[in-house]
Structures are given as C-alpha cells and as structure tokens.
C-alpha cells in the first residue's frame, strides 16, 4: 500500500488549524476520537463514584458519606453510566469511526449533524455537572426518576432530567445519521448480506434509538412540567396515575438496554471470526437476530413492573414476550461459540475480552430469565439480584465489549500497538474482580437485601464486604488496561495495516486512515468473513 497522509494531518474543513481543526471538524474519525476522550472521562468519573458507593457499603453504618450524599451518588453513578457512557460508548466512538469505513465510504451522510450531536453530548454533560452545584444539588431519585418522588424532592431534578433529555437527542441524531448513511452511502458493490456485522448491529441499534428515544424525551419533559406547573398527570390526588409514568419510562428504557447491548454484540461478532480464522457461523442469523432483538425488545417494557400493580394477563403476556427476546440473544451466543469450534484460534487481548464477554453476558442473560419469569421475580424484585443481573449484562456485556473494541481497533485508530502482557493481566484482573464484585450481589439478592439502601442488617455484612474487595480488584484491572493503552502513545510501536488478519474493509486502509478513508477505491469482498487469503498468507510467512 502506498504511503498516505493520515487524517490527523489533514483537517476537514481544510482551512481550520490547531484546536479548531478538532472542534469544528466534519470528519467522522475525529468526532469518534472526540467522543472517545469525553466518554472515557465520564466512565472514569462514574467508576470512581461506584467504587466510593461500594466502599461505603463495605461496612454497616456510616463509613464515608451520609445517606443524602449516598442517594445523590448512586443516582449520579447511574445517570452518568447510562446516558454518558454505555449508550454513546460503542456507537458514538467506534460507530462513528468505523461504520463509514466498513461500508466503503468517506464519511457519514450528515457530517455537520454529526458535529452537532457531539456538541449536544458535551452540553448534556455540562448540564449534569451544573446540576451538582445549582438548586438543591444532583437528583437523589435513582436514574429512573420515578414519580412521585422525582416531582416532590427538593433536589435539582429538572436540570438532571434536562441533561438526560439532551443526551437522548444526541443519541437519536446519531442513530438517524447512521440509518441514512447505511442506506445511501454504502459502496454500490455491497449488498445487504455483505455488510459487516458490526455495521448491522449499529443499524439495528440506530432504529431502536429512533423508535424509543422520543418516548423518554416526552416523559422527561412531563417530569419537568409537573415540577413547575403541578398539572397532576401522575398525581393520584388530581386524577393521575403514577404507574403510567413507569410505563412511559420503560417503553423507552427497556429498548434502551438493547441500544446498549446490540453494538457490543456487533463488536464481538467482528472479533471472534478474525481470531478464529474462520467464517462467522450463521452470518444471516446474527444479522437477523439483531433486528429481531430490536423489534421484540421494544415490546417487553412492563417486565420491570410486575410488582407495580398490573393485571395478571399483562404480567403473563410480558413474561412470555421477555422469554422470546432471549431466543435471538442465544442465537448469537451459540453462533459465536460455533464459530470458534474447529477454528484456528489465535489468542490476543481483544479475543480474551470477547470470551469474557460471552461468559459474563450469558450469566447476565440467564439471570435475566429468572427476573423475566413472573414467579421468581416477585421474590427478587428490587433486590441486589437485579443490580447484579443488570451489571452482568451491561458491564460484563457492553463494558467488556467496549474494552475489547478498544483493544481491537486501537492499532487502526492511532496506528500504534500496545503491550499484550499488561493487557492480558489487566483483563484477567478486571474479570476476576468483576466476579468477586457481582456474584456476592446475586447471593445477597436471593437473601433479600434491597437495592439502593444506605445501610443493612448484620447478616449481609460478609457479602457486601467481599463485593467491595472485588470492586477494588476490578477497578485496578481496568486502570491497568487503560494505563497500558495510554503508554502505547509513548513507546509508539508502529501498527501494520492489518495487525490481526481482519477481512472487513477497515483492515484494508492505512493505520491511521487518510482523510477520505480509502487511498484507492475499496474492493468490497463478496463475503465479509472469508479468511482463505489470510490463512494462505500466514502459511507462507508465520507471524
């Protein structure tokens, strides 16, 4: 491949220089990186908050903070992790950077809208910070903002939900951009069944973002209206129904967990075949299951509300639908495992993290079925079991997929390799710490410890203490991974065009890519996961 100038040295639009070349850029790659630094910042903040919460809970009674601070802190942990980390993490960073490259084009369809989304994201983050210091301080409602408490509390809920509203808009506009890009800018030679699976998952995610986000927008607007005007739409004294709030909230927020997990599944679907040197098992099934999850996932919201007061018929219907969503998720898990079967597996940090994803996500998915079944849910509803399940799926799932994506695409984004050994150690520590952190919570939940409580009875001391220890190990592992990636900037080991033997289009362009992504016209492979050439190359020249 001929030498080309990387996008770092080619501002777009061309007349901007210095910091302006970043802040006013239309380049999807620069925007992806700008998202990355912001998202990593928020992730670190929320992770530290989470660690402080667990430290507080390691011993009964007051350890670090009083109950008010604790309430605001777990709310902040939730709001930041959901709206500022998991939702934007994979689509906004890796989606922005790689979706156009994977479909063989030079940018997203609406580059300026893309920049606007980034500013909305940053503005939402600033509002979240502002709400800490204004009014009565950060909301203490939990990230779900349930009425009536969210309407009656003295805290600055209005500003916190405005932040969430704006972040929702940012994510929706990104989704709109991706759908249009996939439809209109795809290389003419690429049919629907030749699209890489990461792009497929982003496409499905984008539809969920467009379908569901307006519902949370209107719900959050209603919370603000109720706080200022006391219309009473959710107030039983005035004829309203608080349970309706929960319906509206989960109509978005359940699909939203698929917004969070689908891109993660897409990442895993890219990584597994590359390091198995084998075509992905069930390409069409994986692509179709993304869409199936997107559709079925929109119809299960009320499984969060079995104890809120619903008719038995609704409970039955929503329980059934919830079990149906498990099917496409399982299709993916089996396909990944089947891809590795008899493959020529080459271990690497991204693959190790993907394997951790499969394990942790499966635990999360199966505990989800315990919660989705109406009977057992009554027993563990609103306990630590829910907290553990949610973190297994969202953190063990999306979080580890995010780490895997970082390690997988880092050489392409920055053109440098990182140290494998530290990456392995960090990943293993994060995973082991994760299990020591959340498995005790599953048990605590079965024993009946309610979530979100500031204090607990003596019989829960052991579990909470070991969860705290696990938390520290996990955070140390993650910190080591990040440190390892950060020092790769110092050692600057140059990455080749295709360090892993990938076959999708991003591995055919220079690392880092040039401004318009492709130095020469992209050659779309007939099938995105055909490794025969990669295998032939490695036989001639063992790596």
């Amino acid at each position, binding site marked *: 491949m001929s030498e080309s100038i990387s996008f770092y040295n080619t501002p777009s639009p061309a007349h901007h220089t210095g910091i302006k070349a970043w802040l006013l850029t239309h380049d999807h790659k620069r925007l992806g990186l700008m998202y990355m630094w912001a998202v990593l910042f928020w992730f670190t903040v929320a992770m530290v908050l989470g660690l402080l919460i667990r430290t507080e809970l390691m011993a009964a009674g007051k350890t670090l903070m009083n109950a008010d601070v604790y309430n605001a802190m777990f709310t902040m942990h939730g709001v930041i992790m959901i709206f500022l980390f998991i939702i934007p993490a994979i689509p906004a960073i890796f989606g922005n950077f790689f979706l156009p490259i994977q479909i063989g*084009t*030079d*940018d997203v*369809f*609406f580059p300026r*809208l893309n920049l606007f989304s980034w500013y909305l994201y940053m503005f939402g983050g600033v509002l979240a910070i502002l709400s800490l210091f204004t009014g009565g301080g950060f909301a203490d409602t939990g990230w779900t903002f349930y009425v009536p408490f969210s309407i009656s509390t003295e805290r600055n809920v209005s500003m916190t939900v405005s932040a969430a509203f704006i972040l929702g808009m940012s994510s*929706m506009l990104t989704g*709109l*951009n991706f*759908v*249009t890009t996939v*439809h*209109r*800018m795809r290389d003419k030679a690429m049919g629907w069944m030749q699209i890489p699976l990461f792009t497929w998952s982003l496409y499905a995610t984008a539809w969920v973002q*467009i*379908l569901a*986000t*307006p*519902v949370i*927008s*209107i*719900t959050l*607007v*209603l919370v603000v*209206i109720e706080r200022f*005007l*006391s*219309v*009473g*739409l959710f107030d039983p*004294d*005035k*004829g*309203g*129904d608080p349970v*309706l709030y929960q*319906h*509206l909230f989960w*109509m978005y927020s359940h699909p939203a967990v698929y917004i969070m997990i689908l891109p993660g599944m897409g990442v895993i679907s890219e990584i597994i075949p590359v390091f198995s040197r084998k075509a992905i098992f069930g390409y069409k099934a994986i692509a179709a299951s993304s869409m199936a999850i997107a559709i079925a996932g929109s119809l299960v919201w009320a499984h969060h509300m079995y104890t809120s007061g619903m008719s038995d018929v609704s409970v039955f219907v929503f329980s059934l639908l919830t079990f149906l969503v498990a099917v496409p998720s399982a299709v993916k898990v089996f396909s990944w495992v089947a891809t590795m079967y008899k493959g020529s597996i080459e271990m690497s940090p991204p693959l190790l993290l993907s394997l951790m994803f499969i394990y942790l996500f499966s635990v999360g998915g199966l505990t989800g079925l315990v919660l989705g079944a109406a009977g057992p849910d009554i027993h563990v509803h609103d306990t630590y079991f829910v907290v553990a399940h949610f973190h297994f799926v969202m953190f063990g799932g999306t979080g580890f997929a995010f780490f895997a994506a970082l390690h997988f695409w880092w050489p392409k984004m920055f053109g440098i390799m990182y140290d494998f050994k530290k990456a392995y150690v960090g990943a293993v520590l994060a995973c082991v710490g994760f299990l020591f952190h959340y498995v005790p919570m599953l048990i605590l939940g079965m024993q009946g410890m309610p979530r979100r409580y500031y204090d607990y009875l003596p019989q829960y001391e052991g579990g909470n203490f070991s969860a705290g220890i696990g938390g520290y190990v996990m955070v140390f592992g993650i910190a080591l991974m990040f440190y390892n990636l950060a020092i790769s900037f110092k050692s600057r080991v140059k990455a080749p065009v295709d360090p892993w033997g990938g076959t999708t289009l991003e591995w055919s362009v220079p690392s880092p890519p040039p401004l318009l992504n492709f130095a020469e016209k992209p050659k779309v492979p007939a099938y995105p996961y055909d490794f025969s050439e990669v295998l032939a190359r490695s036989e001639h020249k063992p790596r």
Partner: protein
Amino acid sequence: MSSRVDTTGIKIGMWIFLYSEIILFGGLFVLYAVYFYRYPEFFAEGGKELDRVIGSVNTIVLLVSSFSVAASITAIQLKKKKTTVALLIFSLACGAIFLINKYFEWGAKFHHDIYPNSERLVDGEPGLNIFFGLYYVITGLHGLHVIIGMTLLAISLVLVLQNKIHAERFSMLDNSGLYWHLVDLIWIFVFPLFYLVL
C-alpha cells in the same frame, strides 16, 4: 462522492426525524387514551367547554397554510421567486393567526380559572383536571412546534430572498415544508380529540 447533493438521502433523514416527532406526541396520546378510558364522561364534559369555533378556524387556517407551503415548493421549482415569497409570507401569517387565536383561547380559560394547578381544577373532579391538564400540555407542546415550524419557514424565506434556495437546490424549503405539514398533521389529531370529543 460528496460533490453531488443526494436529495433522497436528505429526505430520508428528514422523514426519520419527523417520525421521531410523532412518537414524541405519541407518548402524550398514550396518556390521553388511558385517561379517556378512565374518565370518558369528564372528557366529554371538558370538551364542551372548549370553543369549537376557534378550534375550527384554527384547523382551517393550518390546512390552508399547509397548502400554501406546498404551493411555494412547487413555485420555487418553476423558478417563480415572487410567488414563492408571497406564499411563504402568507403561510407565516397563517401561523401567526393560529398562535393569536390560541392566545385568546388560553386567555379565556385562564379567566375562568382553568389552568394547571388552579383552584377550580384542583378542588374539582379529578377527571376534569386530567382533561384540561392534557389539553394544556398537548396544545402547549403543539404551539411550541408551530413556533419552531414558523422559524424554519422564516429562515427558508430569507434564504429564498438571498437566492440561496433556488430551483436546483431547495431541500431546506422542502424540509421546512415537511415539518410544517407535520405540525398540521398533529393538529388534525389534536382537534377532534379535544374539541369534538363525543
């Protein structure tokens, strides 16, 4: 690749955005449906208190303005700049009439002590409070959309005057027009739900 403007793509983006606006109102219509099922008699009673004449006038005004916006898009394609400008100004005037009517309508309600958290609503029947609560939230949000739509039309008007929108490149006007039709469409649902209920 980016040298030629892909108008179809721009339209896809706009339609998706409009769709999200419909879902936004959809959340409110869900509330309406549930509460209508719970308090049908009070919804009927509340509906009779709304001024059907003003409501009908506003419906006609919006429908006419929707036509004039559509006509202005045809006019720009036929390179009739003056007609385009006139039609856009007419549409903006219709939007203004709509808002003025709304202002008097809301004002009259306020005068009768019917507004969110007013004594009459809080002490009265819960069903009526919900009806008027929804009335204010939905028509208020719709009014906000009328203002946004008028802003978009005004920007298009300025761009037409500056010759930045012309027969070859009129996506901005086209999309503002689509947005205006959306405002109209939502009103077509709001009007019978509140003014003509039962």
